[in-house]
C-alpha cells in the first residue's frame, strides 16, 4: 500500500468520477435549455421561458460544481502523473490548452449573463447566451474526449528515441475515429442524464399538483429527449464504440465480458461473476453467439478470450471492469424501456394521469448518473494497464518524487471537501425544486 501508484490512481479515479457527475448534467441541460428557449421564442408561450429559467438555475449550481471540481483535474496531470505529462504534453497539451482557450473562455464569459442577465439582455440575446453555454460546454467535452481518445487509441503522433510523444498531424489527432465515436456516445449519455432530471422534476411537481404548466413542459421535454437519447446511446453510438473496442482493444473486450476461452459463436453473458483465479465466469446466464455478433457483426466470428493474451496485458481490475460494463448496458436497456412506455403514454395523453409512471420517472433520475459513471469506468479500466494504449504503461507515468503519504493526504482532503460540497449542492437543488419556477418579475427569495 506504500506504492505511490496505487494512491495516484485512487485519487485521480475518485476526483474524476466525482467531477463527471456535474459536466454530464450541465452538458445535457445546456442542450435542453436551448431547446426550451427556442420553443419559447418561436411560440411566445411563457411556460417554456419559465421552465428554461428554472433549469438555468439548476444548471448554474451544477456548473459551479463542475468548474471547481474540474480545477484539480487539470493540475493532477502535473502533480500526480508527471512522467506521463512530460512524455505526452506535446500532444495532449494541445487539446487541454484548446479546451481552456476555446471552451472555458466562452462558457465563463457568458455564464453570469445566462444566469443573471435575462432582464438585462432581453429574450433574443439571452437565448444567444444559452447557445454560447451549449457550444462552450459541448466543445469542452470534445477536447476532453479527444485527449482521452489519444490515450485509448493513439493517432497523429511520433515518438523520439527517449519515448517523448509529439504531434505529427494535428488534424488526424483531432479527428481520431475513436474520439468521434466516443464523443457521440458520451454526449448522448449526457443528454440522457439531463432528460431524466427534467422528467423527474416535472413528474414530481405533477404528482404534487404544483406548477402545472412548467411541470408539463419539463415532463414532456424530458420524456421526448430521454427516449431519443436513450435509443441513440445504444444504437448506433454504443454499438459502434463496442466494435472499436473489439477491433483495437480485444483484451479489454474479453475482460468486459469475463470471456476467457477463445472461440467462435462467443456468447454474451447477461449476468455472472468473473472468477479470475479460476479463469471462468461463475453462474453465467448466456445469450448464445451474441458477443460475436456485437463485436464483429457476425454470429460465427471468433472472439479471443483472455487466455489468449499475456497476463501482463490484462486490465488490472477485471472484476470491476466486468461489472461496470454490465451495469452500463443493463441500465441503458432499462432506460429505453422506461422512456418508451412514458413516451407512449405521453403520446396518448395519459402520462399525466398515470401516477405509477410519474413515480417511476420521479425516482429514476439517479440512474443515468450511475450508467454514465459505469461507462467511463468501463473505458478507463479497459484501457489499463496502459496510459497510452499499447505504448506507455500506467506504471511508467506517475510522479517520481511524490510519495504515497502526500497523495493519501490530498485524497483524504478531497474526500472531506467533496462530501461537504455534495451535501450543500443537493440541499440547494432541493430548495430550488421545492421553490419551483419563478416568473421574471418575481423575486427569487421568498
Amino acid at each position: 500500500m506504500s506504492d505511490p501508484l496505487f494512491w495516484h490512481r485512487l485519487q485521480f479515479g475518485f476526483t474524476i468520477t466525482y467531477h463527471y457527475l456535474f459536466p454530464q448534467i450541465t452538458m445535457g441541460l445546456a442542450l435542453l435549455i436551448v431547446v426550451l428557449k427556442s420553443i419559447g421564442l418561436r411560440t411566445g408561450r411563457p411556460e417554456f421561458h419559465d421552465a428554461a429559467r428554472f433549469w438555468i438555475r439548476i444548471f448554474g449550481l451544477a456548473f459551479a460544481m463542475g468548474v471547481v471540481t474540474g480545477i484539480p483535474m487539470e493540475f493532477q496531470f502535473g502533480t500526480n502523473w508527471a512522467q506521463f505529462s512530460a512524455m505526452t504534453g506535446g500532444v495532449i497539451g494541445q487539446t487541454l490548452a484548446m479546451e481552456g482557450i476555446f471552451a472555458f473562455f466562452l462558457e465563463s464569459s457568458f455564464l453570469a449573463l445566462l444566469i443573471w442577465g435575462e432582464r438585462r439582455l432581453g429574450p433574443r440575446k439571452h437565448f444567444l447566451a444559452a447557445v454560447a453555454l451549449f457550444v462552450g460546454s459541448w466543445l469542452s467535452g470534445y477536447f476532453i474526449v479527444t485527449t482521452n481518445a489519444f490515450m485509448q487509441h493513439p493517432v497523429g503522433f511520433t515518438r523520439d528515441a527517449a519515448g517523448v510523444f509529439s504531434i505529427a498531424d494535428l488534424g488526424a489527432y483531432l479527428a481520431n475515429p475513436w474520439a468521434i465515436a466516443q464523443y457521440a456516445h458520451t454526449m448522448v449519455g449526457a443528454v440522457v442524464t439531463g432528460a431524466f432530471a427534467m422528467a423527474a422534476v416535472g413528474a414530481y411537481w405533477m404528482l404534487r399538483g404544483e406548477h402545472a404548466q412548467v411541470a408539463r413542459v419539463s415532463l414532456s421535454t424530458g420524456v421526448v429527449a430521454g427516449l431519443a437519447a436513450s435509443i441513440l446511446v445504444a444504437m448506433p453510438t454504443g454499438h459502434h464504440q463496442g466494435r472499436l473496442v473489439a477491433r483495437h482493444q480485444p483484451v479489454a473486450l474479453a475482460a468486459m465480458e469475463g470471456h476467457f476461452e477463445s472461440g467462435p459463436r462467443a456468447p454474451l453473458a447477461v449476468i455472472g461473476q468473473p472468477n479470475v483465479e479460476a479463469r471462468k465466469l461463475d453462474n453465467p446466464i448466456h445469450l448464445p453467439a451474441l458477443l460475436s455478433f456485437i463485436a464483429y457483426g457476425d454470429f460465427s466470428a471468433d472472439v479471443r478470450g483472455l487466455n489468449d493474451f499475456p497476463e501482463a496485458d490484462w486490465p488490472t481490475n477485471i472484476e470491476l471492469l466486468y461489472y461496470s460494463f454490465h451495469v452500463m448496458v443493463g441500465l441503458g436497456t432499462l432506460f429505453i424501456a422506461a422512456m418508451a412506455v412514458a413516451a407512449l403514454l405521453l403520446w396518448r395523453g395519459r402520462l399525466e394521469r398515470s401516477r405509477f409512471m410519474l413515480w417511476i420517472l420521479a425516482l429514476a433520475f439517479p440512474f443515468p448518473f450511475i450508467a454514465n459513471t459505469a461507462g467511463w469506468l468501463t473505458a478507463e479500466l479497459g484501457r489499463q494497464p496502459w496510459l497510452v494504449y499499447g505504448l506507455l504503461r500506467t506504471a511508467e507515468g506517475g510522479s517520481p518524487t511524490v510519495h504515497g503519504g502526500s497523495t493519501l493526504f490530498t485524497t483524504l482532503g478531497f474526500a472531506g471537501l467533496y462530501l461537504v460540497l455534495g451535501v450543500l449542492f443537493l440541499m440547494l437543488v432541493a430548495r430550488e425544486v421545492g421553490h419551483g419556477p419563478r416568473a421574471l418579475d418575481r423575486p427569487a427569495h421568498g
Partner: protein
Amino acid sequence: METLWFALAAVMVAAYVVLDGFDFGAGALHLAVARSDRERRQVLAAIGPFWDGNEVWLLAGGGVLFLAFPKVLASGLSGFYLAIFLLIWVLILRGISIEFRSHVGDGMWRSFWDAAFALASTLAPVLLGAALGNVLRGVPLDEHGWFALPLFDSFSPTGALGILDWYTVLCGVTALAAILHHGALFLVWKTDGAVRERSLRWAGRLFPATLLLWLAAGAASAALAPRLVSGLAARPLAWATTALAIGGLAVSFFARRRGRELAAFLGSAAFLLGVLAATATAVFPVWLRSTVDPGFSLTAHAHAASPASLTAGLWWWPFGFVLALVYATVLFRLHRGKAQAAPEGEGY
C-alpha cells in the same frame, strides 16, 4: 520558437494576474469595504460577471505551459505538490462561496460564505506570490529534472529548502499587498457611494505598503540571486518593463489623487504587468533553476516540446487568444459604468 512560446506563456500568466488579481483583491477587501448585505452585493455585482473568465487565464496558461513545456509543468507541479493542492482547495472554496452565497437569503449563510470568500481571496495571492518566489530562488532539481520540496523546512532560502521560507513568504505578502491595492482601485472605479469611499481609503493605505514591500522583495531577490540583477542589466527589454512597472505604480498614485479612477486602475495593471514582464525577461531562458547544479536547470531551449508540437499550437492559439479578448471586451462593454447591487435574486 521556444522563445515565442516562453513569451506567450508569460503573457497568459500576466493576463491572469492582472485580471484575476482585481477580483482576488476585491474579494479579500470586501469584508472591510462593504459592510451591509447590499454593499456586499454591490462588490459582487462589480466582479461577478468577470471572475470566472478571469480564472480561465490560469487554466489556459497552464494549458500553454503543458503543450509547449511539458517537462517544466510536470516537474513544477509534482515538486510543489502540497502547495499546489492548497492552491486548488483555495480556488475551490472561492468559486463555491461566490456561487452558493446568493442562493439563500439567510444572514448567517451569507456571513459564512462572505468570510470564506475573503479568506480564499487572501490566501490565493499569497500562494501565487510564494510560487513566484520559489521560481526566483531556485529548487533542488536533480540530474533528471525532478525535485520535491516539503511545504516548509528551515524557513531559510539558503538552508534546508521548503516551499515556504522567509523569502518566498515575503514574495507572497508583497503579492498580496499589490493585489489588494489593485482590487481597491478596481472597486474605486466600478462602485460608488460608501463602498467607493472606503476602497479609496484602502487604496491610500495599500499604496505605501505595496511600494515598500516591492522594494524589500526586490532587494532580497538581488541579494539571493545576483544573476537576476545581471539579467536585468544586460537586457534592454528588462529596462523597459521595469520602467513600465515604476511608471504604472506612479500613475496609480497620482491618478488616484486626482480622481482619475480608470487611469489609476490601469496604472496598477501596468505595474503588475511590468513586474512580471521584467521578471520573465530577467530569468529567461530558465524556467526552473536548480540549486543543486545550474546545469540541471529546466530551460525554454532544452525542455520545450518538439518543434512540430510548437508549430501545431501556433495554428490555433492566435484565434483563441483573439476570441478570448473579444469576449472580455463584450463583457466589459455590457457592464460599463458603476456596478449597482442587483435586486435580490437577479444577481450575485
